[in-house]
């Protein structure tokens, strides 16, 4: 290629900036001819050049790069050698055959490198060669690396040679155990257990971890057997491994004696420094249960940071809930330590016990605002009618918006409590919008003549906010008696009220005689939001009578009104709309064009099809191109189905 030629010329110029740029270009253009020069530049003393050559070689890739990088493994220049290593690891899968012979090299360093690189090939052909090196190479570091790489490949056929290598010296055992725990072959459990009779403490503890990792039940009896005779640190690891293998639930499969015994050790393991050990103990205790477990686990939780330890906290909360409503949890709820109390609330929220609501209510007023919010939010999920006095009291006495919202929800949506209506109406004048909204929803949920009368007052108010709420409520209550009021609201001076009124009457669209003229009027509304809503409603409440209006809306000055009309016509496959839609394909706003294309695709038919075929699209408009293709396909499909 011409381009490569000029790049190669520049790769010979002795100027670092030129070299760096040329190297990048060689990579982008994938100039294979440049590979030897680029490989040479890995030895440049300029780091910028080195880096560019490195990137280029990786992006070119393939056999030629691998061949060029291999000799660099033998150079004295350490940075270049490391770069070559990295490149070979990254590209190893592309040419395994060239790499295999290196593992029989006479130079032990090269054999170590080769064992390393072969681990990155993701190719089964590397397994037998690595196994051979693992069992026969005279150099311990080659054997070590071979095991690491077999672990990286994680293929089951490597298990037998790894099992055998457990007889090698300790240094090799480390990596063999790692590898076996990745491969997870059942045959290895026996080999690992057997090895434990003669391994050092460190290796033994690694084996225990590995057995836990492998998750094979076969290992459990033997692990339990070792519990008694092991020192605390090792015992904690065994607890972890057993819980990992059985997962809390299957702990029930152990004999009562074994279980009781294990429970004692799990309580001890809670004190371990290793978080994973702690977590396993927590998981196990969640199933074993009991006062002491509850107390000890809660203690751990109260020392955690709500932001940083989120995940652990969630796990602990689940565990505590599973243990159930203990006295430890009750007194934790009343604790002065807000973190502890918080965990108690979160746990109680999911404890399955009928006395939970009262326990929470009793604690509510003792706490500060943040906890109160959490408690009442929890109560809003678990409390029933017997707690109504509490919530009414909260409405009277509390000032916090969040707390009030929760109370409103319970009294309104949950309990439909008519006695609460007046207190809830007071919330509609609260200074925060979200509290107003919560009060509004609660009142609507309660309904009934009294609530209705109160909303009528609002409707007649001079304050737009009150009128808006009334109109919204009328719509939601769906009573025929509000029909006239809603009609009048369509002409309110405030656009937002008109819009909400429109949505309110949407529910009545089956009476199209009465409904349509009202909507029609709003299609000429000066507010674009109101027009948009009107079109939207026509689409949702579609019938022959709305078609002319939708067609007119295609000429609206606002593009989003056009879009909504196109959506509606498309969704209802309105063939008679096609002649009006086609001109929009020339519209200046690409959004309108795309929506027109989609509409035509939905509508289908010959003339829509022709129009779609006539659109010329260019590469730099992938969105449009995609839309056109999809629509054409859709029309064809529909046609074949006909």
């Amino acid at each position: 290629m011409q381009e490569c030629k000029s790049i190669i010329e520049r790769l010979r110029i002795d100027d670092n900036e030129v070299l760096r740029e040329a190297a990048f270009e060689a990579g982008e253009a994938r100039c294979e001819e440049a590979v030897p020069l680029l490989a040479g530049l890995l030895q440049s003393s300029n780091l910028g050049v080195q880096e560019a050559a490195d990137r280029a070689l990786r992006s070119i890739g393939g056999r030629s790069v691998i061949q060029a990088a291999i000799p660099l493994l033998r150079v004295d220049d350490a940075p270049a050698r490391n770069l070559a290593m990295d490149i070979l690891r990254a590209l190893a899968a592309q040419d395994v055959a060239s790499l295999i012979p290196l593992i029989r090299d006479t130079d032990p360093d090269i054999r170590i490198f080769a064992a390393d690189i072969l681990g990155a090939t993701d190719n089964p052909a590397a397994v037998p060669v690595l196994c051979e090196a693992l069992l026969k190479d005279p150099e311990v570091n080659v054997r070590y690396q071979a095991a690491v790489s077999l672990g990286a490949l994680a293929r089951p056929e490597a298990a037998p040679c790894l099992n055998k290598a457990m007889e090698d010296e300790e240094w090799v055992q480390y990596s063999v155990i790692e590898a076996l725990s990745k491969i997870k072959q059942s045959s290895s459990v026996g080999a690992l257990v057997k090895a434990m009779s003669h391994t050092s403490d460190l290796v033994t503890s690694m084996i225990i971890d590995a057995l836990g990792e492998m998750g094979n039940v076969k290992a459990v009896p033997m692990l339990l057997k070792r519990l008694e005779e092991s020192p605390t640190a090792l015992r904690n690891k065994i607890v972890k491994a057993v819980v990992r293998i059985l997962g809390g639930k299957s702990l029930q499969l152990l004999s009562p004696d074994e279980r009781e015994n294990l429970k004692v050790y799990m309580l001890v393991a809670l004190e371990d420094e290793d978080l994973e050990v702690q977590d396993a103990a927590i998981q196990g205790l969640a199933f074993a249960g009991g006062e002491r477990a509850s107390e000890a686990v809660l203690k751990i939780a109260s020392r955690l940071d709500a932001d940083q330890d989120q995940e652990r906290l969630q796990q602990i909360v689940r565990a505590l809930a599973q243990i159930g409503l203990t006295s430890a949890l009750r007194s934790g709820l009343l604790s002065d330590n807000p973190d502890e109390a918080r965990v108690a609330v979160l746990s109680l929220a999911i404890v399955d016990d009928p006395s939970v609501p009262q326990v929470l209510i009793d604690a509510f007023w003792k706490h500060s605002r943040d906890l109160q919010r959490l408690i009442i939010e929890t109560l809003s999920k678990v409390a029933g009618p017997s707690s109504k006095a509490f919530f009414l009291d909260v409405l009277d006495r509390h000032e916090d918006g969040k707390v009030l919202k929760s109370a409103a929800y319970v009294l309104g949506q949950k309990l439909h409590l008519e006695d609460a209506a007046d207190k809830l109406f007071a919330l509609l004048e609260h200074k925060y919008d979200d509290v107003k909204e919560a009060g509004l929803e609660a009142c609507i949920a309660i309904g009934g003549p009294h609530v209705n009368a109160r909303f009528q007052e609002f409707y007649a108010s001079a304050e737009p906010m009150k009128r808006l709420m009334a109109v919204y409520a009328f719509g939601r209550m769906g009573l025929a008696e509000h029909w006239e009021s809603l009609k009048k609201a369509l002409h309110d001076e405030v656009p937002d009220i008109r819009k909400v009124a429109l949505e309110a009457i949407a529910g009545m669209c089956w009476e199209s005689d009465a409904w349509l003229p009202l909507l029609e009027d709003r299609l000429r509304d000066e507010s674009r939001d109101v027009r948009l809503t009107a079109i939207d409603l026509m689409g949702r409440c579609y019938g022959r009578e709305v078609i002319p209006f939708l067609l007119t809306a295609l000429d609206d000055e606002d593009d989003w009104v056009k879009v909504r009309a196109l959506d509606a016509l498309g969704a209802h496959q309105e063939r008679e709309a096609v002649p009006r839609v086609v001109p929009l394909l020339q519209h200046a706003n690409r959004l309108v064009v795309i929506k027109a294309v989609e509409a035509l695709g939905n509508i289908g038919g010959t003339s829509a099809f022709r129009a779609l075929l006539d659109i010329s699209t260019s590469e730099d408009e992938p969105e449009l191109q995609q839309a056109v293709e999809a629509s054409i396909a859709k029309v064809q499909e529909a046609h074949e189905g006909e």
Partner: protein
Amino acid sequence: MSSLFSKTITLGKELKVSDAEFAQLRDFIYQQCGIYVADNRKYLLENRLANRLKHLNLKNFAEYYYYLQYDAGRKEELNRLFEVITTNETSFYRNPPQLQVFQDQILSDVLQALRKSGQRKLRIWSAGCSTGEEPYTMAMIIAEVLKTELASWDVRITANDLSERVLESARRGVYNEYTLRTTPKEILARYFDKQDMFYNVRPELKKLILFHQINLSDMTQVKRVERSQIIFCRNVIIYFDDDMKKKVIGSFYDNLLPGGYLIIGHSESLHNISRAFKPIHYPGAIIYKKEE
């Protein structure tokens, strides 16, 4: 009384982003500014953008995506979107140990070299400057070091950011107590005018800095930035994925004059991103140097 609170009480609320819509938006954002929105931020995006959708009267996130591409208001909306996905958190004298190294080692080394060559032209680039605290801090440090000599130097700090909104407030140069919390008192007195509760940056400091909008993922824009001796890009590349980091850091390398320095956030590293720089370890900071 523009909208009461009808934006929230309109019927049919609950805007959820579907997986397909999320993927679409994510790709779009990545294309636009190189920021990769990870899966675990999907909820955040949904949450924060739902109000935008309601405000724009859009029905779903697919429409929002179209809006961002085609609507007349798209530029403005894009800026809002950027604000949702980035944080602009910053402050004066952020990370003092690093700045100490900058003042005592880096700056003095660069000034020394410039004096020797008789070229009194200093160029610093603050990439991702947010509301301006970082470049003003640079300016103050330079003024402190050069003192009366400053007048005889040609100093310019190029400061840019993706967000027009933060740049606007950077140009204004009015700050409150909180963002100045780690600023030494005597510095406050020398470089700010106090007005009520606020501090205004003095004009002689302002004129050292040139603020303008730039998208670091747009290589053509980045190439046009004047070459500098020192680049600050702190707490910005955290938003990018590795590919994008490599591109941006590569372009910093190209921008730096030989022997120049790159300073990134103290929790960031170039590990696996670039080997072109030589990391220099100082107590409390790692600074990256381009060879002479």
